[in-house]
């Protein structure tokens, strides 16, 4: 198991290298030179040239990359051109908010999606099964901006049960305020994932329930509850975990829209603003962080596989 972990860790190095190349290239492939942009259209050719030299933009790309990557590794992501603040602390603050939102959405998706999937598989062809799968289909087909706005209209504007935007009340608040603020965006963001998970869990469970070893378990006289929750679910969870890993990436990406709709102060919202303002260091830092966290989520999923399925550990 430890050997497998080290091997997988080693494999992340080239992936992270690839990501850094892409992020670095992003800055240099984007139309318009940063020096041009900073100085505006009125600037003289000499002043642009001077700034280019000061910023190191006239050096060969490889040299620029190495010094850039070196700075990144030391946690120096530069200064935001718009906020004129260090990028890293700003991103970390934002990233925390996004993680809270993603974790909330994931929790909702797992509890409802997996739960409904198991029940639907156990009572296949029942009314519950049909209704749940119909709702799941509707859930998969609904875009976030629609469900988000609908949720705000109903639960925040009409019923006034829950706040519609932000993380805390303007005056600040405690953890319960945070949770109250979290419900709508997390459910909105997690709804599609819950629907996908419900469908995947159901089909994975149905597949597993037909297997010979489930019949063997029943033939041993093992109770139905244990057959479902131990034999079937653990085998089905291999499929479910795969989907879960992919959903995590989707949730990180999906948070861009959700955060905008619910004014959630996360990375997504910040990225949208940074892109609009052409705040390249900010965009760069955010993309780097999101991509890196995605790599490590995948690593965690792989470790989870190995833990779930002993056949993976040795291969």
């Amino acid at each position, binding site marked *: 198991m430890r050997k497998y972990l080290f091997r997988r860790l080693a494999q992340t190095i080239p992936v992270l290298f690839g990501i850094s190349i892409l992020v670095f290239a992003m800055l240099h492939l984007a139309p318009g030179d940063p020096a041009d942009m900073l100085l505006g259209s009125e600037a003289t050719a000499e002043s642009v040239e001077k700034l280019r030299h000061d910023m190191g933009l006239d050096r060969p790309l490889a040299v620029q990359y190495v010094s850039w990557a070196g700075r990144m590794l030391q946690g120096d992501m530069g200064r935001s051109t718009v906020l004129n603040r260090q990028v890293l602390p700003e991103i970390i603050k934002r990233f925390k908010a996004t993680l809270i939102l993603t974790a909330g959405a994931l929790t909702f998706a797992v509890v409802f999606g997996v739960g409904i999937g198991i029940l639907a598989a156990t009572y296949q062809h029942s009314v519950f099964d049909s209704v749940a799968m119909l709702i799941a289909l509707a859930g998969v087909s609904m875009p976030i901006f629609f469900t988000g706005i609908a949720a705000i209209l109903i639960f925040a504007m009409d019923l006034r049960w829950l706040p519609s935007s932000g993380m805390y009340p303007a005056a600040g608040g405690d953890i319960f305020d945070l949770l109250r603020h979290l419900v709508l965006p997390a459910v909105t963001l997690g709804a599609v994932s819950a629907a996908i998970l419900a469908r995947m869990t159901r089909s994975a469970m149905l597949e597993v329930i037909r297997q*010979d*070893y489930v019949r063997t378990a*029943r*033939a*041993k006289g093992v*109770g139905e509850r244990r057959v479902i929750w131990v034999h079937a679910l653990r085998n089905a969870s291999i499929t479910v975990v795969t989907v879960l890993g992919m959903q995590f990436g989707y949730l990180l990406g999906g948070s861009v829209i959700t955060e905008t709709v619910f004014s959630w102060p996360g990375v997504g919202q910040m990225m949208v603003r940074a892109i609009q303002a052409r705040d390249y260091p900010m965009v760069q830092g955010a993309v780097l962080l999101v991509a890196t966290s995605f790599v490590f989520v995948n690593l965690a999923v792989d470790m989870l596989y190995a833990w779930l399925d*002993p*056949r993976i550990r040795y291969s």
Partner: protein
Amino acid sequence: MKLAEKEISGAALAPERKEVLSVQDLTVSVRSANGLTPLVSNLSFSISKGETLAIAGESGSGKSITSLAIMGLLPPPAVRVTGGKINLGEVELTKLPEAEMQRYRGDRIAMIFQEPMTSLNPIMTIGQQLTEALEAHEDLPRKEVQARVLEALRAVRISEPERRLRQYPHELSGGMRQRVMIAMAIALKPDVLIADEPTTALDVTVQREVLNLLRDLQAELGTAIILITHDMGVVAEMADRVIVMQSGRMVEEGSVDGIFRAPGRRYTQDLLAAVPRMGKGGHKRQSKPAEDFVACIDDLSVRFDIRSGLFGRVSHHVHAVHHVSFDIAAGETFAIVGESGCGKSTVAKTMVGLVPFQGDIDIAGCALGREGRDAPKSLRRDVQMIFQDPMASLDPRMKVGDLVAEPLVIHGIGSAQERAERVRYLFNRVGLSDDQIDRYPHEFSGGQRQRICIARSLALQPKLIIADESVSALDVTVQARVLDLLQALKEEFGIAFLFISHDMAVVENIADRVAVMYLGQIVETGSRAQVFGAPQHPYTRRLIEAVPVPDPSFKRPVEVRPSGEVPSPMRAVGDAPKAVKLREVSAGHLVAQ
């Protein structure tokens, strides 16, 4: 081994007439679009303590459904018991609610399934699965459970039982997994043990061991065994009484001696006549002396790399085929026999250019490139293959006529009309009719599908047909007819066959010459008469002796139990196995030293 000296015939254990299980008028039906269709109709039988009852029949005869009905494991909600009752002692199982039934299942009645590879949960250790079986029925302290589990594993004679507890199913061989299944089933000393084709998926020597084990355990525990099988050899060796089933009905019931000596019903007679028997092979045939060879295999080796470590360096080789040489003459049937993993299928794949190899392969006077995959088209025309599973080797979305014509299309032979003509001819030749040409594979039975595959392999008029376990998946009566067809085609077209099989009896019936493979090497080769009449190599003898004999009066000689498992063909780089040297004991009969 004291057990080996025991009287072998099951009939010798005079059963006390104490009825443990009785089935009366059992009807099991499936709900379909047009109402209830019975799968088993009005079946009645009973079984006593210590008795072995065999339920024999071909696929679709309802024998497995019967066993699932007794276990209360019929797949809900479509299939259920619609009539009759099943009694375990005084308890009427068919009336019990599911929660009650669970208490009997695994405790008083246990079951062993056909597929040991898939019948164990892949992500639970052997220990966990055995423990679960005990804990489902008895509330015991942890220590005692552990002791009972070990005792059960020792009872099935598994090596290193303590280590097995921590292992996962994929770390065990098929034979060992089936032992674990048996250990699980007997751990609670059930009254009735249902064994559904318990040895069908196993190699013949492993089958022998598992059958012996079942018999010994029965003698010890007095368990009544319901043995479900299609193999009449296994029936003859194991059963006291036999029920023969056909399409859900019992056609005949009687003592094993009675059924084999004087089968009363036509179906039973046909079934028994179709069983391939050792020592009956090659009555009328005389292979002509070999003049020209269609295939010359010289010093063929195939090895696969196992990579490991961070950089995927080759650390081990699997020596699938190791310095193998043989020739196949025009018009002869050459058979390779051996157990799973001996490399026989790899030889077949290599000969059609699917696997890179070392050595020389000449087919119809044309050398085969060593890298595989680039075999010339003409070679593909001269060599055709028939596989084990006819359903899997026919594209389900193509009409069977198109499937048979496809090789002609690929090689650009004939006009559309000529091809249609040829397909019609081939269909008739393999015993199918013209009006079946436009149907799809799923509309045919297993035997018919294999005929379609044969027709397809004949389309290009090949010089050599490689048949890889081509009759293993078929019922015996169908198997006999397909073997007859192959024999007739061989004589009619002068095609040579490379026949690859694990079934010694089938090989003895069809082959002119035989090679026995073990761990990637040929250990004995010669004419059928030489290999089967005077086997020299101990492995050949073991294979021949392990075959179940479809004759209840046959007394199995006291056997020396084979020691353990076949070693792995995987070896570290640089540690290649030694090539065996073959010695000629008589003309054409070569044996490993």
